[in-house]
């Protein structure tokens, strides 16, 4: 009921408040590297007994997790197209969960949470590859 009302109320027109001069380069590796930083920082945090070092770890993890989230969002908003959602009906769900997981990694030093984030980014990577992302969006190596 509410859904149908909302559908009726939804604008048919999009007004762009964008952002980028679209360079068209997309790669989940960008998110993956930031998420790996989070993972390693959590390891280093636990290996250390130096409270100053640990504090720095938390600060840097915060920043890297935010970047991870940003790069996931760029894939979600800018790379994936409606036809990709048709091919992968859980695309929105995966991206949403990955963004949320990046937030989760911000607030925890539990390595398992960082691993979950990496796994979700890998799912995005699978969809990127299956939709021709590498050929369509990355420069090919010069011969």
């Amino acid at each position, binding site marked *: 009921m509410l859904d149908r009302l909302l559908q009726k109320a939804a604008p048919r027109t999009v007004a762009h*408040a964008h952002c980028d001069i679209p360079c068209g380069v997309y790669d989940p590796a960008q998110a993956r590297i930031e998420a790996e930083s989070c993972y390693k920082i959590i390891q280093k945090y636990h290996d250390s007994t130096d409270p100053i070092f640990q504090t720095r770890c938390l600060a840097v993890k915060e920043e890297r997790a935010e970047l991870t989230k940003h790069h996931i969002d760029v894939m979600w908003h800018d790379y994936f197209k409606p036809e990709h959602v048709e091919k992968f009906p859980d695309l929105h769900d995966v991206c949403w969960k990955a963004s949320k997981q990046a937030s989760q990694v911000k607030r925890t030093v539990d390595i398992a949470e960082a691993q979950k984030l990496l796994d979700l980014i890998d799912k995005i990577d699978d969809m990127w590859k299956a939709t021709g992302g590498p050929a369509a969006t990355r420069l090919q190596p010069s011969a």
Partner: protein
Amino acid sequence: VALVAAWPLLGPRATRLQRSWIARVAVEGRSMEPALEPGDWLLVDPDAYRDRAPRTGDLVLAPDPREPERLLIKRVASVDDDGDLELSGDAAEASTDSRTFGAIDAATVLGRPWFRYWPSSRFGRIG
């Protein structure tokens, strides 16, 4: 029955809506944060700039000069002597704006976004 009763209301409004087909828009992108967020649904007044030209600080809906079917929502950063508008996003670092496409002709402006009707938590007038 409800439909029949509503008919006199729908009649004249249909022509008005046709003229102002742009009456509602959904915001995409983050360049207007924090004033507008992606996913905001806005009402646009197509007549707002009929009587007076847009001024610095006004929100405008205008076609992208590089790709006219695409609509932009931006703020007027300045008005030059010829009446052309320099547009910019509020979140300057996240915005493609007049720094990349130059000033736009004020006559191309399609209207003034003036009210946010969704999400309900941010329901209200915008400016």
